[in-house]
């Protein structure tokens, strides 16, 4: 069944002038799967993520999405408005810094509701109800619904960003260091939330992180990047427990055991 895949990027290359952002990267993901992309700072992880989401124009390669109506779209061939529409309906992008993914000057409830309105919800009472239930899911006190995210802590902002992105039930979430600046107990909550959503809603996720503990708990498969190239890819526990490439071995052995 060739049509079974959800998302497939092939031979993606992106150059910044003379410099390589990422080179000849291919990956694919099905519904209900979590793919981790690991590597040190500057390895091209975020560039790759932004390329395949459609935020950055690629120099080479194809990005295919099997959309809700089972039509295969190539991001490199469709026009800008169509791409934006698909990004809103089928995809979601969670930024490392919640300030990049939230509207800081509208209320928490408004941040969630805005996404619902963008896909056609109009009933105010209903929107507020859904927004409340999502605040609960991400453990933000519902009494804060009318407060602006600028009054929230970093961890709360990140959870709000995740709620805002998941409320429309996207089929594929892109996440750039989603638990980066968070304290460990909030990290754990977000990991748990993500795992449940993946299983219950069949969501797929592509997660960029330098935290190998996070990928071990979340990802089915991982990709290891160095200098813009994929140097190793495979089953998550296999790559972490028996890395074959020199650089992957270094990366794995550099983690403090807790």
């Amino acid at each position, binding site marked *: 069944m060739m049509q079974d895949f959800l998302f497939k990027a092939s031979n993606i290359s992106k150059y910044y002038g003379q410099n390589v952002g990422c080179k000849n990267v291919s990956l694919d993901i*099905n519904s209900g799967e979590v793919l981790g992309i690991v590597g040190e700072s500057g390895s091209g992880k975020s560039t790759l993520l932004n390329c395949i989401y459609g935020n950055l124009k690629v120099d080479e390669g194809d990005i295919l999405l099997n959309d809700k109506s089972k039509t295969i779209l190539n991001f490199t061939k469709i026009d800008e408005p169509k791409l934006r529409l698909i990004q809103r309906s089928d995809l979601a992008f969670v930024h490392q810094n919640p300030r990049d993914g939230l509207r800081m000057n509208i209320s928490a409830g408004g941040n969630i509701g805005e996404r619902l309105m963008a896909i056609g919800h109009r009933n105010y009472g209903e929107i507020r109800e859904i927004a409340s239930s999502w605040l609960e899911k991400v453990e933000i006190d519902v009494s804060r619904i009318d407060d602006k995210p600028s009054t929230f802590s970093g961890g709360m902002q990140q959870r709000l960003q995740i709620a805002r992105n998941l409320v429309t039930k996207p089929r594929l979430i892109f996440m750039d260091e989603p638990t980066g600046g968070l304290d*460990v*107990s909030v990290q*754990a*909550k977000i*990991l*748990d939330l993500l*795992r449940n959503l993946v*299983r219950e809603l069949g969501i797929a996720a592509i997660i960029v992180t330098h935290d190998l503990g996070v990928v*071990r*708990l979340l990802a*089915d*498969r991982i990709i290891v990047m160095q200098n813009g190239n994929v140097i190793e890819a*495979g*089953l998550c*526990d*296999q790559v972490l*427990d*028996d890395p*074959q*490439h*020199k650089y992957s*071995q*270094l990366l794995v*052995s550099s983690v403090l055991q807790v």
Partner: protein
Amino acid sequence: MIQIKNLNKSFELYNQNNTNINVFKNINFKVDKGEVVALTGNSGTGKSTLLKLIYGSYVISKGDVLIADVNVRKSSPRDILKLRKNKLGYVSQFLRVVPRVPTIEVVIEPLLDIGCEKKIALKKGQEILEILKIPKNLWNLSPLTFSGGEQQRVNIARGFIHNYPYLLLDEPTASLDHNNKNIVLHLIEKAKLNGSAIIGIFHDEIARNKVATREVNLENL
């Protein structure tokens, strides 16, 4: 049936003076339905390594591992994940779970992964936790705060909640007291009678003699 054919494993450690460690060479044996094969041999002979090769956590250097009709070496990550979900269980000595997730949720996860209804999964989870004598007031707490023996039993509950036809056990009774050890040995016995093919490491000789139908000594191969 699990079939191990001319299996070789070596590790190439590039960042440690390119050290090459040969763990073992040409391992051959088969495990039929209803058999419990105990791996024996001193520390460092590769018992845990062998289990990890069978499970797909380690890369096979040479040779083959066949589980039913699946050739582990030739399988894609997706095929291995499917095999693990449906047929191949693994109980390790260490509990690796998302922090803050309640014990009962940790235990029923393998059932939810194969699409079991949550209500049925919860019932089965409660049954196995009762069998393993995990006090009821702990079920809604994260197992990460538990004692070593309790954590091990949570791991066992996870491994035995689904009737895996193939089961790998790495020291399943290591940190358990006498009574709990017997409960776990009874679970292994039951799986054996159910027709599971089991490979295990049991340092405890009494435990080993109780459940193993055969021994494979990695030093003599």
